[in-house]
C-alpha cells in the first residue's frame, strides 16, 4: 500500500467505526420500537405468539404526564400479552408540520391525541377512521358528557374518542380578596371593579395573556362566550364574528388589561400563573392546572386558592371555553382496530380512568359519568385537597363551548385557530390603537379570508 493512501484508510476506518458506535446508540434506546414507530403496519412476534403492535402519539410532554400515560399503557400491555402499545410523546409544536408529513410518509402512529380543531385538519389527510362503534359501546357503559363528544361528531360519524376535558374558570387569591374586602366576582362589572380595586403599585388585579397565542385565543373566547357571542363560525363556515357582543367582549378585555401587568402582551400560559402564585396578580382566567403548583409556589395554604365560574356580562350567558382532548384512530387494519377497542375498554374502566385523568390533576377532567364519580379520580392527593375547586370546574365544564363547534361543526376552524385570529384581533387594539369595533371588523375580514 502506498504511504499516501494510509490517510484515506484511516479516515474511512474512523468513519466506519463511528457509524457502528452511533448506530448501536441509536437503536439502543428503542428496544425494537423503531419499526413500530416508522411503520404503521407492523405485527411483531413475541414468545412465539402473534402480537398486534400499536403506536400511540400523545403531546402531553411534562414528565409527570408522560410517566402516568406510560403506567396506563404498561398496565394494558401486561393485561393483554397479545397486544403491545408503544406510547411516544410528541410536541404540539410539531403537530401541524411534522405529523402530516409523517402520516403521509407512512411513519404516522395508529393512535394520535387530538383536540377538536386539529381533528378537522388531520381528517383532510383521509386517514382518520370513524370510531362510532367504539363510542357506542363506551357510551353505553360509561356515559360520555355531551359537550365532550359534540366537537368530534360531524359528517354522520364520530372522529375521535374524547378522553379528558379542560375548562376555564376565574381563579382568585382568597387571601388577597379577603384583605381587600372583595367578594369573588360573578359579573363583568364586579370583575372590572375587583380588578381595579386590587391594582396598586406593582400589584395587579388580574393577569391576562395578550400575546399572539392560543392562550390569548382561549381566554378571549371565554369572554366571547359570557358576552353571548360564542358563535363566531357556523357549520357551513359562515363567519359571524363581527357583532355588538363581540365588540363588548374585546372592549372588556382591553379595559381589564389596564389592571394586568404591563408585560401582558408577552404572556402565554405560564406567566399569568406565575404572577398569580407570586401574589403579584390577584386573579387569572385559566384551566385547572392552577391546582398542582399553588401551595408550593405561593407558600400559601390550599384554602387560599379560590375559583368561581367565569363572570357573565349583562345580557350574556354563563359558560367559558371547554374542549375535550381525544384520541383519533389512524389505522384501518382489522386486527389493530380490535386491539384499539380493547384498549379503550381498558382505559375507561373507572379504576383505570381516574388514574389516567389525574396525570395532571385538575387540568384534565373526566368526560364520562362514572369516571367523574370514580374513587380513582377523587382519591388523588391533589384532587382530594382541592375537592370544592374541582367541583366548580366540573360544573363549569357542563356549560362549556368551543369556537367553531357551537353552531354546527366548522371544517375550516383550524385555519382560524392556527393563526390565532382571535388574539390577533386584540393586537389590533393593543398595538395599533384600533377601537374595539374596528378591530373586530378587521378580525371578521381575516377569518372570512381564511375560511374562503
Amino acid at each position, binding site marked *: 500500500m*502506498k*504511504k*499516501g*493512501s*494510509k*490517510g*484515506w484508510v484511516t*479516515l474511512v476506518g*474512523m*468513519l466506519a467505526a*463511528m*457509524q457502528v458506535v*452511533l*448506530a448501536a*446508540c*441509536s*437503536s439502543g*434506546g*428503542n428496544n425494537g*420500537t*423503531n419499526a413500530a*414507530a*416508522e411503520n404503521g403496519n407492523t405485527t411483531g412476534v413475541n414468545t412465539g405468539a402473534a402480537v398486534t403492535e400499536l403506536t400511540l*402519539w400523545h403531546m*402531553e*410532554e*411534562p*414528565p409527570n*404526564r*408522560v410517566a402516568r400515560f406510560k403506567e396506563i399503557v404498561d398496565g394494558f400491555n401486561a393485561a393483554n400479552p397479545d397486544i403491545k402499545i408503544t406510547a*411516544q*410523546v410528541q*410536541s*404540539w*409544536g*410539531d403537530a401541524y*408540520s*411534522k405529523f402530516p*408529513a*409523517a402520516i403521509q*410518509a*407512512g*411513519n404516522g402512529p395508529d393512535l394520535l391525541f387530538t383536540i377538536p380543531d386539529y381533528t378537522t385538519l388531520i381528517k383532510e389527510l383521509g386517514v382518520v377512521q370513524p370510531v362510532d362503534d367504539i363510542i357506542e359501546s363506551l357510551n353505553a357503559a360509561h356515559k360520555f358528557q355531551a359537550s365532550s363528544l359534540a366537537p368530534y361528531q360531524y359528517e354522520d360519524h364520530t372522529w375521535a374518542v374524547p378522553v379528558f376535558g379542560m375548562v376555564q374558570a376565574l381563579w382568585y387569591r382568597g387571601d388577597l380578596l379577603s384583605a381587600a374586602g372583595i367578594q369573588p366576582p360573578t359579573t363583568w362589572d364586579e370583575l372590572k371593579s375587583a380588578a381595579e380595586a386590587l391594582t396598586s403599585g406593582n400589584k395587579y388585579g388580574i393577569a391576562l395573556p395578550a400575546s399572539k397565542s392560543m392562550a390569548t385565543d382561549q381566554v378571549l373566547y371565554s369572554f366571547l362566550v359570557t358576552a353571548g357571542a360564542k358563535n363566531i363560525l357556523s357549520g357551513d363556515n359562515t363567519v359571524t364574528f363581527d357583532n355588538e357582543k363581540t365588540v363588548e367582549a374585546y372592549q372588556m378585555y382591553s379595559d381589564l388589561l389596564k389592571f394586568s401587568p404591563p408585560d401582558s402582551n408577552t404572556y402565554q*400560559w*405560564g406567566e399569568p*400563573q*406565575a*404572577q398569580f402564585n*407570586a401574589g*403579584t396578580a390577584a386573579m387569572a382566567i*385559566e*384551566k385547572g392546572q392552577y391546582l*398542582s*403548583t399553588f401551595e*408550593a*409556589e*405561593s*407558600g400559601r395554604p390550599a384554602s387560599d386558592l379560590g375559583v368561581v365560574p367565569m363572570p357573565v356580562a349583562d345580557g350574556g350567558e354563563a359558560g367559558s371555553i371547554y374542549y375535550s382532548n381525544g384520541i383519533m384512530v389512524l389505522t384501518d387494519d382489522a386486527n389493530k382496530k380490535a386491539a384499539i377497542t380493547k384498549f379503550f375498554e381498558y382505559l375507561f374502566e373507572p379504576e383505570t380512568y381516574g388514574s389516567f385523568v389525574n396525570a*395532571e390533576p385538575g*387540568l384534565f377532567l373526566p368526560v364520562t359519568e362514572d369516571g367523574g364519580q370514580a374513587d380513582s379520580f377523587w382519591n388523588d392527593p391533589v384532587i382530594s385537597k382541592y375537592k370544592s375547586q374541582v367541583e366548580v370546574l366540573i360544573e363549569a365544564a357542563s356549560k362549556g363551548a368551543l369556537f367553531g363547534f357551537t353552531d354546527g361543526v366548522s371544517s375550516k376552524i383550524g385555519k382560524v385557530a392556527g393563526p390565532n385570529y382571535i388574539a390577533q384581533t386584540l393586537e389590533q387594539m393593543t398595538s395599533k390603537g384600533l377601537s374595539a369595533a374596528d378591530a373586530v371588523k378587521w378580525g371578521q375580514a381575516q377569518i372570512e379570508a381564511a375560511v374562503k
Partner: protein
Amino acid sequence: MKAVRYLFGILIIFLIVFPFYWVIVSSLKPADQILKPDLFPKALTLQHYRELLDQTSYLTNLSNSVLVALGTMLCSVLIVIPAGYAIYRMKFAGRKFVSRLILATYIFPGTLLLVPVYQMMSDLHLVNSLWGLIVINVTFAAPFSVWLMQGFFDSVPVALDEAAAIDGAGRMRTLLQIILPLIGPGIATISIYSFITSWTEFAFSSVLITSEELRTLPIGLNAIMGQYTVRWGWTTAGAVLTLLPVVVFFAFVGRFFVRGLTAGAVK
C-alpha cells in the same frame, strides 16, 4: 474619561452576566421564593436539581446531546478539512464558484426545510435515530466551517506544499503531516462551532426524533415547560445544567474560537 470607560465596561458585564446570575439564583431558590423578584435568595436549595435528575429524562437527554454533538463535531472535522484543503489549496475548474456556493446553502430558512428534510430522512430510514440528527447537524455546520477554514489554510505558505511535493509526499500526506499541525486553531474553531450548533439545535431534533429515549437536551427542556404549565424550578435548573458543559468546553478551547473567527483578518 477612564471612569466612563470603566463604568461602560461594568455596565456591559452586568448586562451579559445578570441573566446568567438570575437563572442560577432562581434555580437555587425554594419553590415559594422562585417567583419573587428578590435579587439575593433568602434560602438556598438543591431541590430542583434533585427533582430534575430524579423525575425527568434529563440524564438521557444529556447523553443523547453529548453523543450527537461529539458525532457532529467529529464528522464535521473529517469532512471540512479535506474539503477546505481541496477548495483553498488545489486548483480546479469552478473552485471559486464552489467556495461561494457553499455559503449560498444558508439562504434557505431552516423552517422551510423541515417537512422536505423529514421526508428525505424517512426515505433514508434516518428518522428517530441519533445518526440522522448528526447527519442533519453536519449539513448545517459544515458549509460555514469550510468557509471559516479559508483563513487558516491561507495562513500556511504554499511553499510548504511545494517542498513536501519535491520530497515525494502525496496530497494526503501533505495535508496530514504538513498542513494539519499548522491549522490546529482552525480545527479547534470548527470543532467548537459544530459542537455548539448541534448542542443548541431544536427544530430538526424535534421533528426527526419520535421516541423519548432519543430526545436531546433542547427538546427535553422544552418538554419540561409543558403546554399549560411551567415548572420554573426544573426549567431554571435544567438551563443551568445545559449551560454547564458548554461553559466548561469553552473555558478550555474558547480562545481558539475567538482566534479562529478573526484569522486572516490582517495579512
